[in-house]
């Protein structure tokens, strides 16, 4: 009955209610879309960085992260690998050697990041095979390199050309090698695309004279949000004096911080949007109250309890807000889902301009449930606060006065 009353009251002034609901719908749609792109870009950043680069979890010799030199490496032992691999959620343990080298070809030289990898395991971690645009993927006993496209273009090398690598090896030895290019890979993240060289693990260990040492073990895990639990579980099994176990948040603190700051400014934008819509809602709630003072007076006179009147009014506002929220989510959801599976890529000049900022030229859409129900919460919170006005009006209502004012 109260529901019927509230429902019919909403449609007393159809046009006004439509406009109010439409404005809520519009705000929710816009907010969902904005948040989806925002969160999508964060997810993508984390994914490209963690999923396709560092891995979600890394194990190093204790102290490596502070001082990333080839000297801070540790021995590859079956025991360690087994311990790590046996933790629930760990799918693959991927060994790496990471260091720097100058790469030269003819007149060109550039500082590069050299990764010694186990080609098959590395692919499981970073799907690097899919990045290959020319030549062939490394095999574990090759004595050749794969080079990122940006770097290859800079050095003007092609498949079969030999690149000289010069760096510093274990405990100050010279690391010098000459390797033919067997493959060229293209990475979406410009920084990576302009500086990466892959070498088979064994060859890298020889180049840097590390013996069987590694700089890191990167882990392929079942779910990104299991990171903290897995890090903790590994910590129980391995000697934390000798090793450091780090999740992606520790591996990329600047990224995490950057995302947090960006996220706050995006939330502020959304709140400004909501406040604007809130004024519209308030206008409606105000009119819905003001024009019914006489009616409230009658209801109070004939014996309707204030709390029941307040409940009906509250229901009216909650219903309008709900319709707006549901409509907003329902309309935006198909688009967001579509673009989640078909991200928008920019081409041509646009792509170049965006990539100059060091980010990927694409819009990714997130479908995190929270991005939808957060909009619902925001609208309900606002409706709740705004409906205080009519609730207070009814609380203070005097029947005679209310009926005189009309």
């Amino acid at each position, binding site marked *: 009955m109260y529901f019927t009353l509230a429902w019919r*009251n909403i449609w*007393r002034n159809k046009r006004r209610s439509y406009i109010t609901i439409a404005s809520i719908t519009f705000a929710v749609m816009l907010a969902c879309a904005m948040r989806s792109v925002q969160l999508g870009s964060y997810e993508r950043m984390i994914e490209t960085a963690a999923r396709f680069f560092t891995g979600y979890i890394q194990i190093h010799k204790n102290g490596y992260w502070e001082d990333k030199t080839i000297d801070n490496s540790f021995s590859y032992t079956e025991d360690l690998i087994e311990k790590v691999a046996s933790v629930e959620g760990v799918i693959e343990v991927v060994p790496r050697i990471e260091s720097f080298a100058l790469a030269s070809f003819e007149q060109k030289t550039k500082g590069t990041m050299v990764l010694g990898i186990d080609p098959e395991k590395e692919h499981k971690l970073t799907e690097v095979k899919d990045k290959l645009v020319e030549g062939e993927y490394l095999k574990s006993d090759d004595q050749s390199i794969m080079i990122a496209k940006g770097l290859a273009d800079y050095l003007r090398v092609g498949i079969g050309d030999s690149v000289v690598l010069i760096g510093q090896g274990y405990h100050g030895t010279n690391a010098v090698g000459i390797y033919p290019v067997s493959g060229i890979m293209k990475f979406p993240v410009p920084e990576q695309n302009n500086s990466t060289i892959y070498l088979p693990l064994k060859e890298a260990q020889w180049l840097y004279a590390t013996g069987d040492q590694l700089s890191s073990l990167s882990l392929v895990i079942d779910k990104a949000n299991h990171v903290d639990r897995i890090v903790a579980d590994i910590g129980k099994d391995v000697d934390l004096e000798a090793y450091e176990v780090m999740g992606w948040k520790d591996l990329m603190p600047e990224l995490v911080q950057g995302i947090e700051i960006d996220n706050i400014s995006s939330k502020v934008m959304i709140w400004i949007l909501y406040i604007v819509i809130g004024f519209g809602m308030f206008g409606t709630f105000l009119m819905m109250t003001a024009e019914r003072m006489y*009616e409230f007076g009658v209801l109070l*006179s*004939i*014996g309707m309890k*204030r709390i*029941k009147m307040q409940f009906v009014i509250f229901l009216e506002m909650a219903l309008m807000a709900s319709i707006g929220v549901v409509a907003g989510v329902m309309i935006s959801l198909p688009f967001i889902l579509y673009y989640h599976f078909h991200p928008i890529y920019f081409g041509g000049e646009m792509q170049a301009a965006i990539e100059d900022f060091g980010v990927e030229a694409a819009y990714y859409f997130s479908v995190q449930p929270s991005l939808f129900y957060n909009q619902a919460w925001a609208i309900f919170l606002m409706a709740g606060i705004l409906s205080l006005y009519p609730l207070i009006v009814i609380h203070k209502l005097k029947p005679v006065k209310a009926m005189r004012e009309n």
Partner: protein
Amino acid sequence: MSIIKATDITKTYNATAVPVHALNGINLEIEKGEFTAIVGPSGCGKTTLLNILGGLDHPTTGEVTLAGTNITTMQDGKLIDFRLKNIGFVFQAYNLIPVLTTQENVEFIMLLQKRPKQERDARALELLTQMGIADKAGQRPSQLSGGQQQRVAVARALASKPQFILADEPTANLDSHSTSSLLDIMAKMNKEEGATFVFSTHDQRVIDKARRMITLEDGQIISDEKR
């Protein structure tokens, strides 16, 4: 025992620079089953008196006892409940909830009283039939004439069989035909259901139908005649 008893009621409005003494010492008793008109020139205090008798407003001094209960000191929530259970109200106009149908309006008070659906339906239909507007049961107030709306208001006031019904100028917005038919219906309900009516009016035709007439002037009772 009288159903309405007002003792030494005064009401002073202090809203303006000069206080308005709307009621100056009203003493009044109304018995069950009476059909009473409160009359007098505009501004004499009829509305003020009815509001105080119905517990919608507080007297400045004096006491109101309804069906043996002193309502003067009653707190707001209890008073609302008391009105729901004991008093039916009919106002000059716009009595009805615009979004409810005729039948729903009549049922509304019974609903607030949590009466079962069957009883509500039966009672609403009975009253609407007695009022001669059973065919309008499914229509909204805006689709009814002023006279029909007031009949629905009377039906609603009667629905829960209150101790008495207060009506402030129920016919003020009606033409003469609607006025007399509304009065006839009120008189009939007074006879058939034993409903106690107290209504204010300036309309001579309404006054003629009353069986008791209390005349106010400047906030005082100047005559009280039974017929």
